[in-house]
């Protein structure tokens, strides 16, 4: 059990500054996911917690204690690597046992721990096999078992599911959630996949270019994104963004907030357009609607339209977002919000009328 805190942390490699003056607190016992595009510094943060690449300046605290000078093996953390980093020359048992041996755990205790852990992760029959004879999923479990057996206070995971096939990934996702629930320890999980972040996290830390964009629960990030980046990174397809035409303000809406109709709608925002592509995904269908200025992605639960069909796209006022020139979201309470909403409503009427005139 441990909380982690970054205080004014800077990390640079050969004058290449990856992270600058970052502050972050990761709560004890939470499943925290660091997510962002590649090169955003999320893995760097994780490796700083582990002590693999110590920070250039600032300090990392685990449970309130500065661990800058403590070597990785004595920080009470365990890590699952992207390529698993299993010791290829050791058997499964030796792999799991290695950390315990180094920590001078007595032999009987070791045997008991290894056996109970391997039972938990489903490796019981494979303890004396070499990792090279096992499948990708099983190797993943070795890596997990190796981390779990040390009873760490912090679990670090660096894109552990990215080498698995899609089906297994979904299954492991659920297992990881269950594992977190059972162990109750602090999990810090790095991924570039926002689906993984949304599905597993208690708290998402969204990063871009070495800076934290937003730190919130998945539903908060989804419903109240801090800025354009958060709005466009989270969600598949990402939020539709278009220019409002005033003060360099942008407006946006989620693909599932869009309503499609062959007749003009009574919604606040409305634009005529043509369906350019249709992706039928089973439970839902994703349409790309091209209006005069730009294309919008719309997610519908019904599959009523065909490609090349002329449609009206509408969004209710409650589902609209506005982003200022500084790319930050303008809050509903903000005085400017209603005026921008007004402006968009006015523009919609013009667009629809022009569309009808052309049609």
């Amino acid at each position, binding site marked *: 059990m441990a909380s982690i805190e970054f205080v004014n942390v800077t990390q640079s490699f050969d004058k290449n500054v990856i992270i600058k003056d970052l502050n972050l607190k990761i709560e004890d016992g939470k499943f925290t996911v660091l997510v962002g595009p590649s090169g955003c510094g999320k893995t760097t943060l994780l490796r700083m917690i*582990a*002590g*693999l690449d110590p920070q250039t300046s600032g300090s990392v605290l685990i449970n309130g204690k500065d661990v800058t000078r403590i*070597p*990785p*093996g*004595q920080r009470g*953390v*365990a*890590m699952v*690597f*992207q*390529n698993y*980093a*299993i*010791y*290829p*020359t*050791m058997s499964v048992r030796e792999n799991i046992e*290695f*950390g315990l041996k*180094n*920590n001078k755990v007595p032999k009987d205790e070791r045997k008991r721990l290894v056996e109970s852990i391997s039972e938990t992760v489903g490796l019981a029959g494979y303890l004396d096999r070499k990792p*090279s004879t096992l499948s990708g999923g099983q190797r993943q479990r070795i890596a997990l078992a*190796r981390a779990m057996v*040390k009873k760490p206070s912090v679990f670090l995971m660096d894109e552990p599911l990215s080498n698995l096939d899609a089906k297994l990934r979904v299954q492991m996702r659920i297992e990881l959630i269950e594992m977190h629930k059972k162990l109750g320890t602090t999990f810090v999980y790095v991924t570039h996949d926002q689906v993984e972040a949304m599905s597993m996290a208690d708290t998402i830390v969204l990063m871009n270019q070495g800076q934290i964009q937003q730190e919130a629960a998945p539903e908060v990030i989804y419903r109240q994104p801090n800025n354009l980046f958060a709005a466009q990174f989270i969600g598949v397809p990402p939020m539709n963004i278009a220019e409002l035409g005033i003060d360099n303000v942008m407006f946006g809406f989620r693909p599932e907030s869009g309503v499609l109709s062959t007749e003009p709608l009574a919604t606040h925002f409305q634009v005529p357009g043509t369906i350019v592509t249709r992706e039928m995904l089973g439970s839902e269908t994703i349409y790309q609607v091209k209006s005069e200025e730009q294309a919008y992605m719309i997610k519908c639960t019904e599959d009523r339209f065909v490609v090349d069909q002329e449609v009206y796209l509408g969004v209710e006022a409650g589902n609209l977002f506005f982003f200022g020139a500084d790319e930050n979201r303008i809050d509903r309470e903000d005085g400017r919000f209603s005026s921008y909403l007004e402006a968009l409503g006015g523009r919609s009427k013009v667009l629809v009328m022009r569309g009808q005139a052309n049609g």
Partner: protein
Amino acid sequence: MDKKRIWEAVRPYVMILPAMTGIVLFVLYPVAYLIKLSFYKYNLMNKDKSKFIGTDNYTQIFSREDFYTALLNTVVYTIGVVVLTLVLSLIIAVWLNKRKRFNAIVQAGIFTPHIISIVSVALVWMWLMEPNHGLLNFLLKTFGLPGSTWLQNSSTAMISIIIVSVWQNIGYYTLIIVAALQSIPPSIYEAAALDNASKFQVFRKITLPLISPQLFFILIIMTIGSFKVFDTVKIMTGGGPNGATTTLVYYIYEFRTNSIGYASATGVVLMAIIALLTVVYFRVLSKKVHYQ
């Protein structure tokens, strides 16, 4: 139709024919001829006076003391060279594995002896090892240490030759081990660091097993090479002083003119010893080698 089928069957043999011709002419035939010669008392001047004497040559080999001396010398030389080269090149390779610019220079420098002809190497070292005017004794004396007789004394001649061979070999084998070390993924070392492994544990449990295939390869190649040592001995000591550095191949060479049959028999024995050693290595060590 039938012709085509015959061609299908014959084609692979036609394809390997050029290579096989070479092997038969220059490997298999000489070996067979060597074995044949080993059963003869062969007369180089007059072939017709050659006489089949059965296994007499072999009986003679195993009853002559100088053969055992040569065999013992070879074993001492091999153990010395193999152990020293392996240990030293492993240490140097581990040190060179840290990627620094300086290390690249050291690596190039340490490899250089390998591209110099053994004749030059041997001559230079003879000069260095000269007891009265040589640089080595001069250095030893400057540090207040007693000089050595090096090549001129039967008790120090063998170790002197071993030093020269190790010096010449070390760069090449270091290079192989460095390549092996660099193929180990860094994340394995990171995992070990998180597993709280000490440096010694990391080396013993992770590094060594991971480079064991290359070490095993070096062990076999070097054992075979050392058993066949000739040039260094020929140039530096001529097998002396008092037969102290006569190795098996040099022993064979000494009989090149007057008893070719006996020399051939010794050659066959040498071949058998090397084959036996290789088999033993594979039997004993292959379980400890981790192929991935």
